[in-house]
């Protein structure tokens, strides 16, 4: 599985000169800034700085881009924790418990937990990639559209059913979100639900909608509060507490490992990646916990689950990129452009012929992990000061950032208008007890689900028996049914046993 001669050559590539390392620190800082600024995406940072890689050799270019990726994957968790605005869709689940922790005055610990989980996640992801790059690429090829659709449906149902006693409202929000996600052109060029508006032909801009639903609607709710953290004593930034957060993350090794494994495997599935892995990891952690009701109220395990999964997803998507030449998402799509700029084609050929380069990229990421820890520790105290800002200053500032960021994503007024519309929708849904995360995730997954279902239909010719021939699909569908009705069934059986015993 591991080519030792290539390992040696890979190390030589990295350490024969200092040049490859010159770009790593700037890359991490750029990633942190873009990840931590709502509306600025990691893929956007990579695209903006892509032309600079023309002046670098291939290894140096990949180091620079993966450093931006690594910095950004942690950076996006910072506004999720401090402002309830996930910097990117990969940090949605970080906000679920990170933000309640911040509101309880545990912002230092939450940021420490996120940083430690990210650092361990990246390390774990690249370790798995190092050992398994070839078998992993083979496994990814085995997943067809039917499995993808089943994974999406399972993920969606899990998120929607998180609400416990208000499960119906969770499902409603999630499924309506999925319908909204299919607005615009489908794969066959038919435009639905556009009301004749050309700007809806490509669908509802999901990230501005996410900003409106998550951030703006939450800020409306907090408009009459004084501070994010009401108690003055809790607003202090303490490096000691950030280290406490480190310890908290390490105290849950199974959550880290589970998040890491989910991150690598889901991250390797093209088009799914870290947007889904963080949510799946979160839901699995909550489902297996002794006290599931503590999630969403500031349980550090939620932050560990999300951050470990989204960080390991980076390695998963790199596996698909390197082994198959398929980008898993926006960030790896930019990397694919860098491949093309250096006349390199990713895929099995690339792995076989340039194994030393692949190993060099992996080893460089091990080093990036430690640099991320140091740079992250320097950044956190600066950023954590946000809890000291009165809400009357914070709210308009964040709303402005969301509006400008959404303009940055769409390049026209569609972005700000989308933020406004979905802010009002999110505010009403939140007020009446609907799950806003389920609605947002539904929007993210709607188009993806339709595409997978359509491909399955085309492959099978509409024959339902096709599903019966796909064991992985059947297993995932069984898991879906268990997650929907499992607890009720167990309760029903226990009730019957008690009745029989009495």
């Amino acid at each position: 599985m591991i080519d030792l001669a290539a390992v040696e050559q890979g190390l030589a590539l990295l350490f024969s000169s200092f040049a490859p390392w010159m770009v790593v620190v700037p890359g991490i800082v750029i990633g942190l800034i873009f990840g931590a600024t709502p509306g600025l995406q990691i893929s956007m940072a990579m695209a903006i700085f892509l032309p600079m890689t023309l002046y670098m050799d291939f290894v140096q270019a990949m180091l620079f881009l993966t450093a931006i990726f690594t910095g950004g994957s942690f950076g996006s968790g910072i506004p999720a924790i401090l402002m309830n605005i996930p910097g990117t869709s990969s940090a949605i689940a970080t906000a679920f418990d990170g933000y309640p922790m911040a509101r309880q005055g545990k912002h230092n610990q939450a940021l420490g937990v996120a940083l430690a989980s990210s650092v361990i996640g990246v390390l774990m992801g690249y370790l798995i990639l190092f050992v398994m790059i070839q078998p992993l690429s083979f496994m990814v090829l085995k997943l067809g559209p039917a499995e993808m659709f089943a994974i999406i449906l399972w993920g969606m149902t899990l998120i929607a059913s998180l609400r416990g006693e208000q499960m119906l409202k969770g499902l409603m929000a999630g499924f309506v979100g999925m319908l909204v996600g299919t607005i615009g052109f489908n794969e066959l060029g038919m435009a639905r639900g556009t009301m004749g508006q050309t700007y809806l032909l490509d669908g509802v801009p999901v990230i501005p909608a996410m900003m409106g639903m998550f951030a703006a609607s939450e800020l409306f709710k907090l408009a009459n509060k004084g501070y994010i953290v009401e108690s003055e004593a809790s607003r202090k930034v303490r490096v000691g507490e950030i280290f406490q957060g480190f310890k908290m993350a390490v105290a849950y090794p199974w959550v880290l490992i589970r998040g890491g494994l989910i991150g690598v495997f889901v991250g390797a599935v093209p088009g799914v990646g870290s947007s889904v892995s963080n949510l799946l990891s979160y839901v699995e952690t909550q489902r297996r916990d002794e006290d599931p009701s503590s999630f969403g109220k500031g349980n550090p395990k939620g932050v560990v689950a999300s951050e470990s999964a989204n960080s390991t997803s980076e390695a998963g998507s790199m596996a698909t990129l390197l082994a198959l030449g398929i980008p898993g998402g926006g960030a790896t799509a930019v990397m694919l452009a860098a491949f093309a700029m250096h006349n390199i084609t990713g895929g099995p050929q690339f792995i076989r012929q340039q194994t030393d380069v692949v190993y060099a990229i992996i080893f460089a990421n091990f080093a990036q992990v430690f640099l991320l820890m140091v740079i992250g520790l320097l950044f956190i105290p600066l950023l954590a000061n946000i809890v000291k800002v009165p809400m009357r200053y914070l709210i308009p500032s964040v709303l402005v950032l969301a509006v400008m960021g959404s303009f940055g994503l769409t390049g026209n007024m569609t972005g700000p208008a989308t933020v406004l519309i979905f802010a009002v929708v999110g505010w009403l849904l939140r007020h009446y007890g609907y799950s806003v995360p389920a609605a947002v995730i539904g929007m993210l997954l709607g188009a993806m689900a339709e595409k997978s279902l359509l491909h399955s239909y085309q492959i099978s010719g509409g024959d339902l028996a096709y599903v019966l021939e796909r064991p992985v699909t059947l297993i995932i569908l069984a898991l879906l049914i268990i997650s929907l009705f499992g607890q009720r069934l167990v309760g029903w059986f226990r009730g019957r046993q008690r009745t029989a015993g009495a």
Partner: protein
Amino acid sequence: MTTNKRDYGDLLVLMALAGFTLWYLMDAIRVSSAVQNLLLILPLSFVVLAIVLLEVVLRLKDGTLFQRQGEEGEPLFRTLPVVGLFAAYVISLATLGFDVATVVFVALFLLLKGERNWLLLGGYSLVFGFGVAFFFAEMLPYPMHMLVLPD
């Protein structure tokens, strides 16, 4: 949380969700009734409508249809001025530009939320508004409409 006050909001939101689903389904059928077009939309719409119906029936049975079930929070009307101000800000971007609209929005928000230190109010809204507009205008690859700053 449930309150004893009669609240039609919950029912209205349910109706809005069902209404949107029906409208979207009809629109999709109007575009094309081909299986490929309705493969996801048709079954998903039926599921949503069935859940809405189930929710209404269950809530009628419980006698809670006219009670709000949601997070404990302030009444909607108390937040309306903030929502209105934000809407005015987004709408005014096209005319006032990102720079001036942002300065005005931040200043009015501070005023609305009780900031009476005029130096702080004016200083912050000017520095933040122009600063953030300038930053994004420099970072983004396309022109942003400005009234005072260069596009």
